[in-house]
């Protein structure tokens, strides 16, 4: 089922929390950006929900993850959990910038990483093509080597 964020956010009051206070945008600007997100901005989906790319007016990108709604856990538990996750900062962890909680959508705002994920790098289409070409090259050189050695022996 396709469900657009503006439909989800527009119907109810959304709560936006930004961690560290180091984002140079107003809450209004971020909410406006979130409302504009739609199917065209989808950059991936996983077990935890759909990921959108949010591009701010100054060109800076963020990854917005819409969590598949967890019906049983309360808003307070959800927010408490995210407050804890927002405290963690490490150069090898994706930085959680904030979250937006409305009764119909739970959105997590992360830094956008431009180089994709490791899985694409390791198993992407071009990696496979290069792998096949490289192996074909080795096989052909090996056969030529055998033929040369064979002709020398004869």
């Amino acid at each position, binding site marked *: 089922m396709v469900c657009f964020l503006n439909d989800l956010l527009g119907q109810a009051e959304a709560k936006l929390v930004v961690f560290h206070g180091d984002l140079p945008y107003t809450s209004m600007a971020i909410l406006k950006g979130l409302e504009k997100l739609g199917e065209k901005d989808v950059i991936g989906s996983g077990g935890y929900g759909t990921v959108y790319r949010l591009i701010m007016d100054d060109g800076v990108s963020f990854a917005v993850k819409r969590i598949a709604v*967890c019906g049983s856990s309360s808003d307070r538990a959800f927010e408490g*959990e995210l407050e804890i996750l927002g405290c963690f900062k490490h150069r090898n962890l994706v930085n959680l910038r904030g979250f937006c909680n409305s009764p119909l959508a739970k959105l997590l705002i992360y830094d956008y990483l431009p180089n994709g994920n*490791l*899985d694409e790098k*390791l198993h992407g289409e071009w990696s496979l093509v290069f792998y096949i070409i490289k192996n074909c090259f080795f096989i052909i050189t090996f056969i030529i080597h055998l033929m040369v050695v064979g002709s020398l022996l004869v």
Partner: protein
Amino acid sequence: MPLNWQARIRIAIGTARGLAYLHHDCCPRIIHRDIKSSNILLDQNLEPHVSDFGLAKLLEENASHVTTIVAGTFGYLAPGKFHIPYTTSPCRNL
């Protein structure tokens, strides 16, 4: 372009550093429970960034501070977890 070995080693070490931070330096300790190549994102310098940490618990029903029910992706799950599907230590990530 395919990754060279130097880049791969840097990604492996960086990922391990991120997980070690979650396991040992965070309070409360975080066990990722779904570590896999598609959860390791790369920046413009091919520096790895672990994503989706701490989400396993958010989506769990009856959430408590001790999360035990098995989570993860088929193919990346530790074989032992089929028999004893409960999480007790960070070894779940290895």
